[in-house]
Structure formats: structure tokens, C-alpha cells
């Protein structure tokens, strides 16, 4: 079995173990209500993480996702507050807005050959500001957070039976993206661009276009998440989602997509998001002091990643030694 498969199993095992432990620790954990909330939280991060995974596979990074959430949310509210367009008309516009921002990121990165991290960090600032500026203001010019009552829009925050609407959407998006990555030429290009841009270009892949596309998708996912978030909260605030990028990154990296690019997939990200959500949700049940909770979360993340990386190194070392032995035996070239 391949190393990555084993890593995947280990992580899944850890997830189940922690889940089980929590169910014993607190009766409130393993209840339909709580699990659904957990999944809802996971999906909220997960939708963004799906887009982010593609960025990471191209060896890039997108620090602006949080800010994109904020802007898109404000965009929706503006539509609801000023125009009285029906949701099914302006939500596509909002999503397109997310893509446009992603395009801008991709454009600046590829056109000016600037490091992704700093470009998206700059756009992050830019969008944070934009969100404040387009926020709905009252007569005295103070930001006013509108209470959304449009039933159609609110449906995004709603549930079908006990299942929140966002949950199936997340899993559908994940499945579709995984399928895209593995079964379409464009998906292959994403991996190629991340693994070895020079080679990708030689094979006739337009890496610039691939990158721009990836950032657009990341923007789209963030925008989608924003719609669900503001529907759930029945309002939008200019600071929505800002700072959440760290959670997303953690989820994706725990899911086994490295910063070096060319590797990783969506299933890993799904597990990673569930993992993070479980820890965050479970920790609340343990009656810990709120001061201990961040310590615990930070600690667990380090431990998990250390274990994962350690196993990877260990397994690869074993494989390498085996290869050397073999080479030594038949004296042939490396």
C-alpha cells in the first residue's frame, strides 16, 4: 500500500479515535443535533478549503480567502438592502464577484511574478477595506448590520430535516472537485503546474492560465461559503471570515496536502476539515476553561502534523534503503 494511503488511514483512524473518546467523555457529543452542527461547521470551513487545496497543489497560497468571504457577504446584503432583486438573481452575481477577485490575485501573481503569499496578503487588506466601504451605513454614516429576512436567501442557512443544507453542498462540491482533479485534463494540468512548471510548459500547458483559474476557483469557493454564512447568521458583517484563513490552511495541511505542490487531493482535505471541526467542537464539551482550549487545539495540531510527517519520513527511509539493497544486489544503476 502506498505511503500516502497509509497516512490517510492513520489520520482517519485518529479522527475516529478522537470522536469515540469524545463520545465517552461527553454524552452531548454523539447526538444527532451536535453531529449536524459539527458537520455544518466543517462544511463552512470545508467549502473554502476545497478551493484552497487546488491553490496549494499549484504550490501557491491564498491568504485573501477570509477577506473574500467578507466582501461577498457585504455584496449580498447590499443587493438585499438596496435592490429588491430575488436571491436567485444576485447570488450568481456575488459568486461571480468572488471569481473576479480570484482572477485579480492570479493576474497580479502571474503577470508581475510576485510571491503568492504577499500578493494575496495585500489583496486581503484591500478587500477588508472594500468590505467596510460597501457595508450598509445608517444616517450618521455608521456601519449598520442588516437583519436579512428574504426567505429565499435564508434557505441557504436552513436544513432539510436535521441535515443543514450546506452539508450536502459541501460534499457534492468536494466530490465534483476531486473528480475534476483526477479525471479531466484541466485537473491534470493543476498537478503538473504545481509539480514542475517548467516541464508543464514544455508539455504545452499554459501554466499562467492554470494558476489564474485555480485562484478564481478559490475565490468562488470563498464566495459560496460567504452566502451560506450570511444566510445562517441572517446578516453580514464587514469582518466576516477575516482570520478564518488560518483554520482553512490548517485543515488542508492536516489533510496531507503539502506546501511544496504537485501532491494532495480533496479527500484528504475533507478528512482534515472534519478533524479540525471535531476537535474544536469536542473541546467545548469538556468543560475546559476557555484559556486552556487554544492551548489544546494548537497542541493537537502540532502533534498530528508531527506524527504524519514523522511517519512519511520513516516510510520513505525504509523504501530508500530497500531500493539501495536491491541496487547493490544487481549492481545496476540507480
Amino acid at each position, binding site marked *: 500500500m502506498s505511503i500516502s494511503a497509509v497516512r490517510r488511514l492513520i489520520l482517519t483512524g485518529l479522527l475516529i479515535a478522537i470522536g469515540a473518546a469524545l463520545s465517552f467523555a461527553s454524552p452531548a457529543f454523539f447526538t444527532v443535533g451536535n453531529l449536524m452542527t459539527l458537520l455544518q461547521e466543517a462544511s463552512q470551513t470545508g467549502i473554502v478549503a476545497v478551493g484552497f487545496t487546488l491553490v496549494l497543489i499549484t*504550490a501557491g497560497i491564498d491568504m485573501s480567502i477570509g477577506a473574500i468571504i467578507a466582501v461577498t457577504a457585504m455584496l449580498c446584503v447590499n443587493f438585499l438592502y438596496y435592490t429588491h432583486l430575488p436571491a436567485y438573481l444576485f447570488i450568481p452575481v456575488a459568486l461571480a464577484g468572488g471569481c473576479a477577485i480570484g482572477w485579480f490575485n492570479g493576474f*497580479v501573481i502571474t503577470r*508581475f*511574478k*510576485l*510571491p503568492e*503569499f*504577499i*500578493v494575496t*496578503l*495585500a*489583496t*486581503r*487588506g*484591500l*478587500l*477588508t*477595506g*472594500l468590505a*467596510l*466601504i460597501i*457595508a450598509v451605513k445608517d444616517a450618521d*454614516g455608521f*456601519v449598520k448590520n442588516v437583519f436579512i429576512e428574504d426567505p429565499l436567501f435564508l434557505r441557504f442557512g436552513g436544513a432539510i430535516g436535521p441535515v443543514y443544507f450546506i452539508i450536502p453542498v459541501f460534499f457534492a462540491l468536494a466530490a465534483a472537485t476531486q473528480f475534476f482533479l483526477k479525471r479531466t485534463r484541466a485537473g491534470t494540468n493543476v498537478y503538473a503546474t504545481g*509539480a*514542475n*512548471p*517548467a516541464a508543464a510548459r514544455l508539455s504545452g500547458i499554459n501554466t499562467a492560465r492554470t494558476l489564474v483559474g485555480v485562484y478564481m476557483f478559490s475565490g468562488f469557493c470563498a464566495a459560496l461559503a460567504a452566502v451560506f454564512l450570511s444566510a445562517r447568521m441572517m446578516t453580514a458583517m464587514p469582518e466576516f471570515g477575516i*482570520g478564518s484563513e*488560518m483554520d482553512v*490552511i*490548517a485543515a488542508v*495541511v492536516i489533510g496531507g496536502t*503539502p*506546501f511544496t505542490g504537485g501532491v494532495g487531493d480533496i479527500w484528504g482535505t475533507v478528512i482534515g476539515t472534519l478533524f479540525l471541526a471535531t476537535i474544536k467542537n469536542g473541546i467545548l464539551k469538556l468543560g475546559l*476553561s*476557555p*484559556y*486552556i*482550549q*487554544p*492551548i*489544546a*487545539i*494548537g*497542541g493537537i*495540531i*502540532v502533534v498530528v*502534523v*508531527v506524527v504524519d*510527517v*514523522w511517519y512519511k*519520513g520513516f516510510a520513505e527511509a525504509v523504501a530508500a534503503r530497500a531500493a539501495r539493497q536491491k541496487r547493490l544486489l544487481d549492481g545496476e544503476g540507480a
Partner: protein
Amino acid sequence: MIAHTRLRRLLAGSRLFLILILMMAGLSLLSDRFLTLDNLTNVLWSVCLIGIMCSGAIYAPITGGIDLSVASIAALSGIVLNALMNGAGLNLVLSLAITLGFGLLIGLVNGIVTTRFKVPAFIVTMAAKTYLFGLAMYISKGDQITIMKPRAFLAIGIGKWLGVPFPIYIMAALAVASHILLKHTGFGRRAIAVGANEVAAKLSGVDPDRTRILVYILSAGTAAVAGIVMASLTQQAYAMNAGGYELDVITAIVVGGTSLMGGSGSVAGALTGAVMVGFINNGLNLLNMPASYHPLATGLVILAALILNQGMSLPRTLIRWMARLRPSA
């Protein structure tokens, strides 16, 4: 050819500074209050925390890493210091020493986890940011502890010499020290080499792990100093202080022309970057621009500065791209 490259490098080096000058010119046209000695002092005073952090944190990007935990370290050290000084009642010097040592220890941990376990620095320091904040909360019980004594300590942040607040001297001293460390010592050379090509550096007798660990110790150390200054300046030990400063620090460093892929860096640049951001905020305040517009303006200026300034790092960036994409031997 030689003359040409020299010239290009000179221009590239000073380009950011020219941008800064232009900005100052613009601001002084907009507000007559801008170009006054007091105000410029104030700007430096307001960026000194970021500046102090930059002077140490810059080594992480130079080695191809990153340190996201500096802000939490700063907040934590303020709290530890107060606990020692006013809680345990130790004398000032001793408490300062222990606090600094504590900071260095955190750096050591970050360094060891990144090098020995080969975990990406981004994740290590991001997690550290989280649990160090928790630790700060835990020790301080979340209180905003006001520090009223000792006088000597409060002087660190607000005391003045020749009309210039002490923190500015501290920042200047650390920046100069850091510059010398980077440009004129073996450690600086090794850090750059590790960032440029770890394997080659190793075969030339550099110990990359040792260098990296030192880098994170250094970064945490300056963060602790910043924390001490902040505690004294605000007369407060508070876990929430310095929240989010790590991103400002990185922004300043990168705007200053240091590539995140390692192998090059400029302390002067990083400081210029920090001051630039300081000027923007100050300018917006002087013009009494509504708060909603500040982030946008700042973001725009940063992006512009990056694009104007990237000419110099472009060729190196490309080479490093190539280098990074090879599976390392």
C-alpha cells in the same frame, strides 16, 4: 557588464527608498502637519514594535521559512514579565532577563520542531501562535493587567532622550545589530546560504538545522523584546495586545524586498517597509480619513509598492523558482 549589474543593483536597492520619499512628499503636500519633527518621531514611535519584531523575524524568510508566532510571543512575554516583576516581586533586571530567556526558549522549541521533525515552519509557528495565545490567556486569567511600577520599567516605553522616545533607540539598535549580523557575520552568510540551496550549503560545511534553530530563536527573542517594550509603552500586560501583528511584520519584510523563498534579505528594506506602512496610517489619521477607508488605502499602497519594487527581486525569484521545483537531493 560589471558596471551594468552594479548599477542595476544599486538602483534596485534604493528603489523602495525612492518610493518612500515620494510618499512622504505626497503626504506633506496633503497635510502641513506631516513633515514636522514631532510627527515623524511619532510615526517611528508607532512602528517601533513592528520594527523591533522585523529585525529578528526577517531571518525566517531568508532561510525560506516563516514565523507566524511573533505576535503571540510578544503578548506572552509582557504577561510573563509582569508576573515575575509584580507577581513574584523579582527585581527588574532579573525579570527582564528571565522573560527574554523564556522568549528564546519558545524560539528553540519552534526551531526544533521545524528542523528535527521536518514540519513546515508555517504550520509549526501557526500552531504556536494559537497555543501561546492560550498560554498568555491562562497566565493572565484574561485580565488587562495594568503595570504601574516600577518606574524604571515604565521608562522603557515612554521615557525620552533628546526628545526621542527610548523605543526608537531600541529599534534602531536592534536593526543595526541585525543588519551587521546579516551582512557581516558567518551566521548571516549561513542563513542566506541555507535559504539559497540547503544541500550545497551543507556540503560547504554549514549545519542547516543549527542555523534554522538559531533563526527561530532570534525571531522569538526580538519578539520578546517587542513584548517588553509594548508592556511598558501601554503600561499593560494583556493577552489581546499585538493581535495580528505577525502579518504586519511579514508584510513589512516582503515589501522590503526579502523573498519568501529564501536566499536574500534586507533589514534596511524591512524597516523601510514598516515605516512606509506607518506613514500611511499616520497620514490617514492626520487627514482624519474615516476609519472605514484606512485598510483599503493601506492595501493599495502596499500592492503598489510591491509591484513598483519587484523589479529587483524578479530575476532572483525566477532562479529560486527553478531551484525550488527540483526534488531536493
